[in-house]
């Protein structure tokens, strides 16, 4: 595991990498390192895995959902800005599907407000922004080695930073905050055992040297698909931010006629499983948020929230709803060949025609 941490840090170009049990644990370690006061706010997205959100609640903080750009499903500086308050402690940016956020303006906004940016790069191993790897751009980066990710250890995660103090805090968090190696060790603060096992570490060490080639092949085939479906009516390929390299954990089509479900149904008989609407609904419509199901009947930490911070009115999230309405997520992997991609392109063309009733 230590070998993996060292080699991952080197591959990413950061000072510290701490292996942990999952991508959710990586986010949890990051939030713990930020150490918010109860009721403090962390700005994030509602189009993400719940594992990137519940750690905020466990740390007593309030996730404040920024809207997204419906063309990318990603948060932007413009959608984050109205969510900032005097209680904001950090901004999490999720590079969804491997497609980096338009990071420059976000970094500028965060710097202006003195806020750390946490990158959720769980889906973005190998993605780049201005020649920096996703996850190595903000103050903290979080990664997943879950079963379906670019590389996997069956499960697992990594949290990274260049900051010595944050690294120490994140190392402690995944180790029950026990001061290993200290002269008089103690459990210094509230923390969990989120360690990666040595067996997972061994698989991860063997996977890491393969990552660049895996990403290269995913990109090559995705670019080919984009070229082949450019003229298909009602379907748009992924849109990348300027200076960004998408690493294609998934290939997310945008269906512009509002019939992503119909297109998915038409693709199914051709052997192409797809996920219309991705996570189906924004995270804030899940019961944990909508019904505030947290610790017993307390509704903590929502009880500490500013009303505006937990206002989940649909009118506040036009981009989020539009993004989910249009999303049709195709599985993607490095074993796709030119023949496979040609088949997928033909299937999309045919399915689009069927879905439009032509």
């Amino acid at each position, binding site marked *: 595991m230590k070998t993996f941490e060292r080699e991952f840090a080197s591959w990413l170009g950061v000072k510290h990498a701490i292996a942990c049990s999952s991508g959710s644990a990586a986010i949890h370690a990051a939030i713990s390192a930020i150490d918010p006061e109860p009721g403090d706010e962390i700005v994030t997205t509602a189009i993400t895995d719940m594992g990137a959100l519940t750690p905020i609640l466990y740390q007593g903080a309030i996730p404040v959902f920024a809207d997204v750009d419906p063309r990318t499903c990603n948060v932007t500086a413009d959608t984050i800005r109205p969510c900032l308050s005097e209680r904001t402690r950090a901004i999490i940016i999720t590079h969804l599907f491997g497609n980096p956020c338009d990071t420059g303006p976000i970094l500028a906004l965060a710097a202006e407000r003195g806020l750390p940016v946490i990158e959720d790069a769980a889906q973005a191993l190998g993605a780049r922004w201005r020649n920096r790897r996703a996850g190595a751009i903000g103050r903290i980066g979080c990664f997943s080695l879950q079963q379906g990710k670019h590389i996997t250890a069956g499960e697992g995660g990594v949290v990274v930073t260049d900051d010595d103090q944050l690294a120490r805090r994140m190392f402690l968090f995944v180790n029950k905050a026990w001061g290993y190696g200290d002269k008089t060790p103690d459990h210094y603060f509230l923390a969990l055992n989120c360690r990666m096992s040595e067996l997972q*570490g*061994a698989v991860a060490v063997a996977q890491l040297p393969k990552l660049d080639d895996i990403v290269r092949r995913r990109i090559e085939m995705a670019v080919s698909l984009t070229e082949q479906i450019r003229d298909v009516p009602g379907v748009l390929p992924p849109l990348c931010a300027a200076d960004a390299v998408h690493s294609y954990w998934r290939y997310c089509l945008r269906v512009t006629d509002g019939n992503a479900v119909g297109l998915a149904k038409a693709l199914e008989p051709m052997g192409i499983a797809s996920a219309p609407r991705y996570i189906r609904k924004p995270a804030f419509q899940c019961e944990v948020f909508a019904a505030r199901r947290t610790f017993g009947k307390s509704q903590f930490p929502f009880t500490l929230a500013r009303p505006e911070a937990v206002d989940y009115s649909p009118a506040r999230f036009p981009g989020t709803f539009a993004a989910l309405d249009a999303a049709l997520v195709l*599985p993607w992997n*490095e074993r796709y060949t030119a023949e496979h991609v040609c088949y997928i392109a033909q299937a999309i063309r045919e399915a689009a025609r069927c879905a439009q009733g032509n």
Partner: protein
Amino acid sequence: MTKLPSDQDASGRTLGQEELDALAAVIRSGTLFSVKG
């Protein structure tokens, strides 16, 4: 119908002898029995 590789099984993944060798090395090293916390 063309059957596509899937990342839900080994057909879409890049796992092989290197991973098996690394696992064997860890098991032989005894580190699994070293209590770390």
